[in-house]
């Protein structure tokens, strides 16, 4: 009886551990994406006409586009600066005698 109970407990904990691992990895992936040099943008569905307000406030779609463009602007600043650390350094390989 004791053995059966322990086996059942182990099985439940194993499933919980798998779920926990999955959640941690998902979280980790999201964290990595936030650190990326060039962020990937996700396409969104076309905006609904009924959402457009006659008031002068900016629509959420335009706001999203503007934010995306500003992010791209930042990414471009990074791409623009050449990484000269990747130009291999010079070394001496000749004794000269």
């Amino acid at each position, binding site marked *: 009886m*004791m*053995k059966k109970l*322990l086996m059942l*407990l*182990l099985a439940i*904990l*194993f499933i919980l*551990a798998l779920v*926990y*691992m999955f959640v*941690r*990895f998902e979280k*980790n992936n999201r*964290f*990595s994406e936030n*650190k*990326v*040099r*060039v*962020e*990937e*943008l*996700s*396409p*969104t*569905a*076309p*905006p*609904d*006409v009924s959402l*457009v307000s006659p008031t002068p406030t*900016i629509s959420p*779609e*335009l706001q999203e*586009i*503007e934010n*995306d*463009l*500003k*992010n*791209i*602007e930042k*990414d*471009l600043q990074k*791409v*623009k600066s*050449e*990484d000269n*650390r*990747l*130009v*291999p*350094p010079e*070394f*001496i*390989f*000749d*004794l*000269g*005698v």
Partner: protein
Amino acid sequence: MNKAAKYKFLETCIVLILMLFLFPSFLEKRSYGLEQNHAELYQKFSQSYQKYQTLIDPFVTQKNQYLAYRSLQAQVDFLNSAKSLISAEVESIVLYVQFLKSILAEATAVLNYRENYLYVNLDKELDYFLLQQTKVASLSSLGETKDFLKDLQSHYQNVSLFAYQVKAIVEIYSVDKTLGNLKTVSDKIENYFGSQQNWEGNLHIDSAKEVFLKERAELDKINIHLNTAREYESKLSTRERNKDIAKDLRREIDSCVDILERVNSSYLDVVNSLK
């Protein structure tokens, strides 16, 4: 099952469960470390390279003394100074290869670079240079040192090629990804125009759309520059003048960045005019 066996079984279960919970945390720390490392690794390399450079003058002085006197003592001093220089040299190269690996790891994680041949080759060279680190102390003659340096040089030519290849990959993939992002935004703007049916006939909106369509067509020009950049990348080899090829490649990347900046800025103007 007796009582002792039950406790043993329970203990094993607890250890297994703890390991299952701790394993992801361990992995997380390792991958985070990889991403964080390249700046630190480059700093370590820079310090090591500076130390290497401070050893060049004493090496040249000992060499001149050896060439002037050809005495046994001068030869011994020259050999010792050469060994110190080579030791610092190998240490710097090891750190540089580790730095290259960390940059490549970032390109894989961030820019979706999927090839692994560079990893394999960098690992091979890293193993070689780590092995040479242990051999420097046993060099006992100038002839042996010369041969050692010749072998070292041929392997460093590979490292040098890999550095230019990593640079090309980072540059090309960064532009490619930014282009992809800008195309996604283009689609969003197009969808936005498509959804605003009540604006038909509005001259202000029509001109914004015209500007948008003209700028979007500019994005096609980037592919021409990117393809030329890829051609330059394929020309990189141990026999070529990689420094010149890398400069030509960078020129193509700069052209891509110019177009991307122009289009991005025009898109922002279009969005502002739609507010």
